[in-house]
Each structure stands twice: as C-alpha cells, then as structure tokens.
C-alpha cells in the first residue's frame, strides 16, 4: 500500500478483518480432521459431594461410543493442574486439582467422567447415561462465611478454607498516618463475581501422530506456549513433541489464559484412542467450568486532613478463589491488586492485607483488568466518599492529591515506580470535553427541582505490560515474562514476523506490521504476522495484562532495529562508503548528498540472501530474533467522566454522556486504540450496571446461561466519546503503554460515582454493584434491600 503517512500512528484498517467478515476465521470449533471423535464431560450437579460410585456400562453400550473414562482410568496418566503463581510468604495452600474428580466434587460443574463417541450427539446421549451416585456434603459459597468456625471445609490442608494470607506493608508508616489524620472514612465494598463471557466458548482438538510421536493440540488459548509447558509437565509428553496451536480465538478477557484440566484429558484421549479428539463447550458448561473473575469483599479506611490531603490507606480484602487455585488465581487479588489501590495520588503510606479463601464455587482467575479494576474502584470511590465527607468537589480533591507531572518516575507508598504520567492534564481535557463546570451548575438547579442527575469521575492509573521477569518471578510467578519476536526478511524483501503474543481481537496482525514497517520502511502489506503456533513462533508468553503492545511489540521494534543495523552495514559495503555516510529513510539507505547512490532494503535483502559479497565475517540473510525483558511495567492513566440521569420513580439510570480520556503513551493505530477503549469501557460498565454471577446457598450457579447472566446488548450500551493525551513511557523502545484493560479499570467506578452523586446529598454514600434499577430505587426511597 502507499505509504502516505508513517505507518506508526496511522489508523489503517486491520489486515485480519477480511477473513472474519467473510466467514473464514479459523476457530478451533471449525476444525474437523478426518476421523475426528467427540468428547463430552460428565459434570457434577452438586457443589460439594462425595462420589459413591460411577456406573458407566449403559453409556459404554451405546452404539458409536468409543469409551467412558473416570479418575480411575487417569491414575498415573495425567498429573494435577497446578497454579503457576506461588505467592511467597503467604502460606499458600495448593490442594490438587485433578482432571476428573476422584472421591469428592467441590463445585457444581466439576468433571467426574468423560465420554467419547463417533458423533457429537451420541456423545451427549452417552454423557446423560453415565450414572454417578453422590452423597451431598454441606456447601459454602461466600468467602466470609467460609472463614467462620464450623463452616464446611473443602480441603484438609486448608483450615478455615484459607488458601493464603498476603500483606503488602508498603514503604510508609500507615499507623502514624492514621493517628495524625483529621478525618478517617471507612467503607465496605463488594466487588462482585463476574463471568467473563467471551463469545466463543472454549474448545480443544488433539491429534497424535504415532510415527513422529508428536501430539498437536488446537486450543482456545491466550498463551499457547504456556499451555505447551504446563501440559508437557502434567502429561509427561516431551515439550519438543507437543505442538500447541491457538488459531483464531473468539475473545478471551483472561478466561483463556488458564490451562484447564480437560484440555489435558483431550490430549490423553487422542493418544489413547489414536483418533483426533474434539471437545467444544456449550455456554452453560462455559459458565460453570470456565473461570470466573473478581469476587472480593473489601474493607477500606482512608485517612486525610481537613483540607482533603490524603495521608494513608488501609485495606483488608477477602478474596473468593473458588474451589481450586486456577493457573494465575492467587496472583490476581495479591500482586495485580495489592500494589495499586493508592491510584494516582501522592499518598504517603498504605497497607494491603489479602486473604484468599476456598469456597464451593467455580475457580476464580484473571478477568479483564484482573485485580486492577478492584484496586481502582476502591481508591476512586473512597476519594469521592472523602470529598462528600469534607464537602469538597470531586475534581478539586483529585487535583489536590495528584502525583505532580514533574515527579516521575514516582515511587509509590505501596511499592511501585510509576514510569510517567500527567494526571491533571488528562483530567483537564476530560472536564473540558464534558463541560464540567456547566454540568455542576445544571445539577444544582436539578436538585432544586427534585431531578436526579449525577456526574462521576474516575481518574485512574493502572499497571500493565506484564513483565519484567525479575519482578514476576520475585512475586512467585513460575515463568519469565518477556516479549519475543522474529523478523524474517525473505529474499524478495517480503517479511514474515513471528510474535510471542497471541492476538485474539486486539489487532496485532496489523499493529505489529506497523511497528516493523516504521522501523524498516517496508510496506505494511508486505509484512505478515504469524502467531499462536508453538512449532513456528519463538517461545512467547502470550496476550493478557495489556502486555502485547509494550512488551511483545517492543520486541518487534528491537528485532527490526537489529535488521536495520545489519542492512546498514551491508549497504555501506555494497556502496563502498562508511556507515556514517548513509542516511536511512523510506526503506532506502542513501549516501548523504548523493541522492542517486542508494540501496533499498529489498535490494539489501536479496544481497544478504545471495551472500556473494557481504562484509567480512557477516552471516547471510536478514533475520533477527529478540527476547525483550523490559526495565519496568508501564502505567497508562486517564480520566473518565460519566453523566447520568436517574428516574426517581423507577430507579432507572440513563447514561447521558460517557467521556473517556486515556493516555496510553504513543499510539500505533489510534482507531484500534479507540476500539479497545470502547470495549473495555462497556465491560466495566457492565459490572457496574448489570452483571453478577449468582449462586444459591446450595452452590447452584443461577446465572448459568445468557438468559440469567445479562451481558449488555447494543441497547444498554452507551455512546462513548473518546480522546487522549500522550505521555510516552520513557523506558519502552517505542514509548507505548497498554490499552486492553484501561476502559474496564476506569469505568465501573465512574458509573457508580455518577449514580451515588445523583442521589446525593440525601442518598447513601455507597451502593454495591451491580446498580440494578431495584437497588437504585431502594436507595432513593430509603428501603433496605
């Protein structure tokens, strides 16, 4: 394509779109190799029960059934799935999570048997013929109840169901901060459990090649190399003979990070039966057995001076981990949460204490934002509560406490070093766009007239770009967290770019080509991005934690620069000048002052391939790989403003305006950045407005399909106005930060702040999410729920 403008910073349409728009996406469920057979899992209807016996004979006798397998068949064949985040100093308990339950089931949806048949419908018939006898046990679903004396116990090794206890004591003296304070405000928050609800349910298809002894797994994964490593360990298949391919994946939002036990079972079945074995979840299975997110009960104290200066924050969290620890489970309410509740404020001291608790519920792991929405919600709500207490304007109190733009890098009281920021700049822009002063005037008038309108601010900062390895491993993560890429220039000058990221909606097939194109002057259309296949891409850590662009994309820039440096040497050699005599632009090395004397990058690629005449000692071809371990995280920030009107009679909330000003550093493709913000904002609003996973007291998930678990449709979704400021990350090779989670991290509290503000001054200081019309109506009318 024509390079009218620098590819970096251009809103070019996505390369990946055409295949989805024409129905040619390669989702796992679309694959059907010859001879495929179909697996279905028998799942427990009880949340806690002893398994007395499993009668499989009727299922086995059904024509077309190849086998029915239980824990007894897997003994010694497949190891337990383990958590990969072993939080140090937390007395972490890691009870085994075996692929098919043996003696006891601990949540409704836990698998107890698997059937395989020639036809998917026959597999379903056979699944329903497996007769499991259960002896129900007492159930506990709430984390605070689970810690009480006499509560049902899930695991013998975890007394009072405590999975871990973790403290971040921060770097300041928090008790002194509270002693010296004029005012302390306290609040309990319930950050409710959510169901990630990627539109594509999970799927796995395994194939074994007896000749080469290679096992190939197609799986809905955000991190195929992590899947390969973990599955290799628990299956005993050598890592080099296990090929994991995550093709097109229909959304993840964290739920496709974990390695699920049943993916291992599908692999084992393929080897055992010597047939391709395919398993596709239905939606109810997805809601029962794919991880859930959030689910924290938070007790928060904030200390301040009368003038609104915040002095300290003290937080106790009880986090529901579900029945077992999922892959990254323990890291979410600790490492990804517990360093961020100070937000963008110059708070001198803080302390965060987190207790993880087992309950008879689906395991909890990363859901979009993963710990950081829970942290941002706390501080942004507490600042509003403090402002109300001191009768200060929410914007003024924020401005007073912001970390000043000239204080970066900034060491926070909770122990991180924020890379760069200009919080006041982003807030100023958002307030200008929304017309804040005018809205406050209008609100004063509305209050006089008895109308309810509210303005909610969220001035968030988040930590993302998950890396650096030394920090990740010091916090107990069982893996390096770096980025990887190979940039391979073919003899014709066309490029294949291999990445360790796993795009599944974020658009890196386009943006990574833009990065390489910017560095090399090769058109975007000549650069194909390859991802998701462990046999061809360098070891890579995948896509989550808004890490792809800063970490994996940083690696792409570094690989491309290695190639550019090598190409410069070759150009100098071919043109018989010194490297210093060359200038590089638009993919061409030109001898300074001699416009006709030049070599294009394509000409150099050919010369590097022919290797007829290369500088002495230089290896042929242009091909570079980089494993990039960043110096620090990146810290995107911004201000979101939500303006609502509340119907007094019904409690119905209408969003009048939603303005998002985000600073994600340099932008590669602003159109994609905006799209990420839109989607992120709606997921955060969904938590604030309507979503909630609900269990009854017996541990039945009442929200087990889209009829009960309400994700927003186009009718509930507001128009979202976006804008940005640009404060590059100083340590990132291309000055970028992450954008995948910002919207979700910012928006829930903007909405709740707006609704609580609408109900003020007489309404409650807080309403727990989701703010259904009923809850809002009760808050208006002073009727307890």
């Amino acid at each position: 394509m024509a390079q009218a403008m620098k590819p970096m910073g251009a809103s070019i349409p996505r390369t990946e779109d055409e295949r989805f728009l024409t129905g040619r996406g390669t989702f796992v469920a679309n694959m059907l190799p010859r001879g495929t057979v179909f697996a279905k899992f028998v799942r427990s209807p009880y949340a806690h029960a002893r398994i007395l016996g499993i009668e499989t004979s009727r299922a086995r006798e059904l024509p077309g059934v190849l086998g029915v397998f239980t824990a007894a068949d897997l003994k010694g064949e497949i190891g337990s799935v383990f958590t990969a985040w072993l939080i140090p100093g937390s007395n972490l308990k890691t009870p085994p999570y075996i692929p098919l339950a043996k003696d006891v089931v601990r949540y409704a949806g836990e698998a107890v048997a698997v059937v395989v048949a020639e036809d998917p419908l026959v597999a379903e018939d056979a699944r329903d013929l497996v007769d499991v006898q259960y002896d129900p046990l007492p159930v506990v679903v709430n984390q605070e109840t689970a810690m009480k004396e006499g509560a049902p116990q899930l695991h013998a090794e975890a007394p009072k169901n405590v999975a871990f206890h973790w403290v971040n004591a921060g770097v300041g003296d928090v008790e002194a901060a509270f002693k010296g304070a004029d005012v302390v405000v306290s609040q309990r928050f319930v950050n409710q459990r959510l169901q990630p609800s990627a539109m594509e349910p999970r799927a796995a298809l395994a194939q074994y090649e007896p000749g080469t002894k290679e096992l190939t797994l197609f799986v809905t994964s955000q991190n195929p190399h992590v899947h390969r490593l973990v599955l290799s360990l628990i299956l005993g298949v050598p890592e080099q003979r296990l090929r994991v391919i995550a093709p097109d994946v229909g959304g993840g939002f964290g739920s496709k990070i974990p390695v699920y036990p049943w993916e291992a079972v599908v692999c084992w079945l393929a080897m055992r039966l010597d047939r391709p074995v395919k398993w596709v979840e239905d939606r109810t299975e997805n809601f029962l057995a794919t991880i859930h997110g959030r689910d924290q009960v938070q007790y928060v104290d904030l200390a301040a001076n009368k003038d609104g200066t915040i002095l300290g924050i003290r937080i106790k969290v009880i986090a529901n981990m579900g029945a077992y620890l999922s892959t990254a489970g323990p890291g979410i309410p600790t490492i990804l949460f517990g360093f961020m509740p100070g937000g963008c404020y110059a708070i001198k001291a803080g302390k965060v204490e987190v207790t993880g608790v087992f309950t008879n519920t689906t395991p909890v792991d990363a859901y979009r934002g993963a710990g950081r929405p829970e942290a941002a919600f706390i501080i942004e709500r507490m600042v509003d509560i403090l402002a109300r207490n001191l009768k200060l304007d929410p914007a003024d109190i924020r401005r007073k406490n912001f970390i000043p733009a000239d204080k970066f890098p900034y060491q926070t009281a909770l122990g991180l070093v924020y890379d760069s920021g200009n919080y006041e700049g982003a807030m100023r822009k958002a307030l200008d766009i929304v017309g804040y002063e005018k809205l406050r005037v209008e609100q004063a008038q509305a209050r006089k007239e008895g109308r309810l309108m509210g303005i909610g601010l969220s001035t968030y900062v988040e930590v993302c770009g998950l890396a650096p390895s030394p920090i990740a491993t010091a916090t107990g993560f069982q893996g390096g967290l770096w980025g990887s890429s190979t940039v391979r220039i073919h003899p014709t000058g066309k490029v294949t770019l291999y990445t360790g990221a796993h795009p599944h909606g974020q658009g890196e097939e386009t943006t990574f080509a833009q990065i390489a194109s910017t560095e090399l002057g090769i058109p975007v259309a000549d650069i194909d991005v390859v991802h998701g296949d462990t046999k061809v891409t360098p070891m890579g850590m995948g896509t989550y934690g808004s890490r792809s662009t800063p970490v994996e994309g940083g690696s792409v820039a570094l690989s491309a620069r290695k190639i550019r440096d090598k190409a410069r040497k070759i150009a100098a050699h071919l043109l018989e000048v010194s490297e210093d005599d060359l200038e590089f632009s638009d993919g061409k090395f030109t001898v300074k002052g001699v416009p006709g004397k030049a070599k294009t990058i394509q000409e150099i690629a050919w010369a590097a391939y022919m290797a007829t005449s290369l500088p002495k000692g230089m290896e042929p071809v242009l091909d570079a790989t980089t494993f990039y371990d960043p110096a620090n995280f990146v810290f995107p920030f911004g201000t979101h403003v939500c303006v609502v009107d509340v119907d007094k009679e019904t409690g119905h909330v209408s969003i009048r305006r939603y303005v998002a000003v985000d600073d994600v550093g340099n932008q590669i493709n602003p159109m994609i950045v905006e799209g990420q913000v839109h989607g992120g904002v709606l997921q955060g609003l969904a938590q604030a407005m309507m979503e909630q996973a609900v269990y009854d007291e017996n541990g039945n998930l009442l929200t087990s399909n889209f009829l009960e678990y309400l994700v927003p449709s186009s009718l509930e979704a507001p128009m979202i106005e976006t804008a940005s400021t640009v404060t590059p990350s100083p340590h990132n090779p291309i000055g970028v930060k992450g954008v995948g989670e910002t919207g979700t991290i910012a928006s829930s509290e903007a909405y709740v702040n707006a609704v609580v503000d609408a109900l003020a001054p007489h309404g409650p200081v807080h309403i727990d999410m989701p703010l259904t019309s009923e809850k809002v109506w009760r808050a208006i009318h002073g009727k307890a729920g």
Partner: protein
Amino acid sequence: MMAGEAAGRMAKGDRMARHRIALSVNGKRYERDVEARVLLVDFIRDDLRLTGTNVGCDTSHCGACTVMLDGHAIKSCTMFAVQADGTEITTIEGLAAHGRLHPLQESFRENHGLQCGYCTPGIVLAASELLHVNKSPTDDEIRTAISGNLCRCTGYVNIVKSVSAAADRMAGRR
C-alpha cells in the same frame, strides 16, 4: 439426566429417524438426510462445512448463529434442520457477491466494527436485514436491529458506525 424411557431407548441403540430435506444455501441447492434432532446451525456447520456461522450459546440469546432464511435474519440454533426444508438461506459466506465484499463488510473493515470476529457474521447478517427494509436507519434503529446479537469486544460503538456508514454507501450518499 434424561427421562428413563428415552434413556432406555437410546441404550438399546435406537437412533432418531432421518429425514430428507432440500434447501438452497448461498444459491446452491443441497439435498441431505438429517436426523430430526439436528439443529440448523449444526447442519450448516458440520454437514455443509460452512463454518462462518458460529455458535455462542444454546438459548438464542447471543445471535452468533444468525443467518438469512427466506430474507429474514434468524437464529439458526433455534431451528431444526428439517424445519428449513424448502427454504433459501444465506450465510456469511454467501454475502460477498462475485468476490466483492458487500458494503456492510467493507464498512465494518473501514470503521473497525469488529475485534475478535466471532459475533461478526451474525451481526453483519442482522444488519443486512435492517438495511434491506430501512435505507437510512437512525443510530437507535440500528441498535434495536442488532440488539439480539451480543458482542463482547467492541462496546457496539463502531458496529453502529459501520452499519450507518454502510447504509450511506448503499444509498450512494458517499
């Protein structure tokens, strides 16, 4: 758990009856024998191997399985294949005529109306019915028309923009 009688019948190996159906999909005529219980979406995906039509739920809520049937956008997970006997169906694979993208497809690409792409075929087909009956829909009309199709990625903002831009394009307004 299924009722004892049905389970017993299955255990004996009785298979559901098969029926001959004839229908047109993307302009091509098919005649097939299908089990009575096979859903239209599974017939389209597994028998015809047209996998652009996706499955996102089993309760008609998500709309990933939307196809055009006799000119109407319907959810193919909520219909048996035998009920589609004698109908004309268009799936996402049939929308681009003669290798040229439909204006909706062009417009979704230009306006970043998709991310992971899983809901996209259904949304595009739901929108195509709208644009057939309403040449210049308002944003609210677009939102209503696609409200049976869930998208978890885009926040719908760019979907609405894409449909609106496609309407303009089809009406020659730009």
